[in-house]
């Protein structure tokens, strides 16, 4: 099992913002009552500070909700924030997933090198060095693979996270809504359905986004985080591969994220 390190970063929205931005789903409530409408806001940013992204049908590959009743599309009004609106009538944990279509971006060499470093994409940095590309601009296509766990009502039985089949997917292997602060949350990371070993996974709390917890996945693509505090959590990972031939890009990246709320005092299902 990979070791968990606590890393506090002193940088606060530094003068030169991070080269690459995370993307995550921020529901209007993580623990709504059954029958209530929840707005699913898509956010792009860093350090849990994000800008809303309105619903763009051109970008959406899949925007879905999955619960015990099955898989359904998430609806919303194009061009508006929140990008998705849902109402769930049965108690339980609902998994929301957003998979974007690939979007191209061109980054200057220094920005791209910096971003590889920040996201722990060491293998790609080495590959670029071997190819003598460290001073060339990078043409990249990126895909967003965001998930969010929302608990409706007070479920008697708590189904944990589910596998949605996103290209890059973080899966909470225990139900966070049954956890207390200080307990371990094992998380698996898959790329195209297969475990992704050696990838950097970062967890941050909305209230203290600078106190990041980072770990690399083990050979089974798994990390375990001991989440020290209650609050809204974002777990994220980035994977990159050389872009396939004929794509007019050098690199293809995949941005996985998982959001949920840790509520030790919750009256829901007792912690196991």
């Amino acid at each position, binding site marked *: 099992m990979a070791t968990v390190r606590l890393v506090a970063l002193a940088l606060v*929205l530094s003068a030169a913002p991070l080269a690459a931005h995370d993307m995550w789903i921020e529901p209007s409530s993580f623990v709504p009552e059954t029958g209530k409408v929840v*707005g699913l806001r898509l956010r792009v940013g860093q350090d849990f500070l994000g800008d809303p*992204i*309105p619903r763009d049908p051109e970008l959406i590959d899949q925007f879905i909700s999955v619960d015990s009743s099955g898989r359904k599309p998430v609806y919303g009004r194009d061009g508006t*924030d929140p990008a998705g609106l849902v109402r769930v009538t049965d108690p339980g944990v609902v998994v929301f997933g957003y998979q974007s279509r690939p979007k191209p971006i061109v980054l200057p060499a220094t920005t791209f090198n910096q971003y590889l470093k920040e996201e722990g994409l060491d293998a790609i940095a080495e590959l670029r060095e071997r190819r003598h590309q460290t001073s060339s601009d990078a043409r990249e296509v990126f895909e967003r693979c965001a998930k969010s766990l929302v608990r409706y009502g007070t479920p008697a039985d708590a189904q944990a996270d589910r596998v949605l089949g996103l290209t890059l997917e973080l899966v909470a292997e225990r139900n966070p809504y049954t956890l207390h602060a200080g307990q371990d949350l094992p998380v698996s990371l898959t790329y195209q359905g297969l475990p992704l070993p050696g990838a950097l996974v970062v967890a941050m709390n909305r209230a203290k986004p600078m106190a990041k917890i980072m770990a690399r996945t083990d050979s089974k693509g798994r990390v375990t985080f001991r989440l020290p505090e209650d609050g809204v959590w974002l777990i994220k990972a980035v994977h990159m591969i050389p*872009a396939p031939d004929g794509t007019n890009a050098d690199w293809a990246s995949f941005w996985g994220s998982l959001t949920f709320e840790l509520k030790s005092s919750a009256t829901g299902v007792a912690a196991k």
Partner: protein
Amino acid sequence: MKFAIWRILAAISLCSASSFAHEIGTTRVSVVFQQGASYEIEVVTDAAALADKLQAVSGQAPQSDKTLQVQLQNYDEVFRRRLTIAFDGIVVTPEIDYSVSGTATETSAPVATIRMSGAIPPGAHEFAWTYSWTFATYSLSVREPGGDNETTEWLEGGQASTPISLVSPRRPLSRTAIAGRYLALGFTHIVPYGLDHMLFVLGIFLLSRRLRQVLAQVSAFTVAHSITLALSIYGIVSVSPKVVEPLIAVSIAYVAIENIFMSELKPWRVALVFAFGLLHGMGFAGALKELGLPRSEFVTALVTFNMGVESGQLAVIGAAFLLVGWYCGRRPWYRRIVVVPASMMIACTAVYWTVQRLSF
């Protein structure tokens, strides 16, 4: 490989219209210049997202007990740190007014409208803008001073805008103005810039002093070059300048050499001049394409350019007649002293051009 290439290809096609950038967010910035004296900039953005960022950068404790509008007002100094408004590279400090409307619900979010205003420094030419309070792509719309046109640029947070000119854009030219302009362009394409065309026309003039013979040649030449000028401009005929330019030089050499051996207009000479006119017309078309034709007054420009070319040629003939033809034309030595040496000089120059144009 499960990795679907078509998805990436699809992405490239769908993004070709906009940007190679991040996702487009909800922030919109609009700029209006008031009669070159003052500016007004309005930023519309998600109020809570902005307040969160301001709080993080300020390093202060969250002010969650205060309304978003008060929070934004309190962070005024922080907000100004990541904002640049500059005229001719000189940063100005705007008045800023913050207001927030709407409330946070499941389906909506409060919106901040930030109005910045101030005076434009006298004599300023350019406006530049940088805004670093968004992680998403945003739009900057600028209403041109004195015009109804609005230009929109998509920018990343922290990215400097393309400098925006404060000078009023030129009004579209009237038909008369375009006609005058292309008439002048056509004329100057012959006098003084078109030495090769001038020599060709002189060659025509030197053959015979008889008005009828000059007119016959000039008319054939004019009709011919008008035809190919129009056909080339409309793209019906297309011959590479690499072919046309050396042939123009050959045509000048031919006319000049013929002048040395011939003193009367033969019918084939008119036919040849017509054929050469076709060549020169393609040359004029090349020049006109380089100058560009206004889309709105395409025909006006084409016709007036041709008329300009024509007047240039007539001016050359007129000047030649006044200088030598009028006085020397009837002298017995006119051919020996004027026509032959001048034609020889023209021929030599044209042969030199032919070689030069073939080798480049």
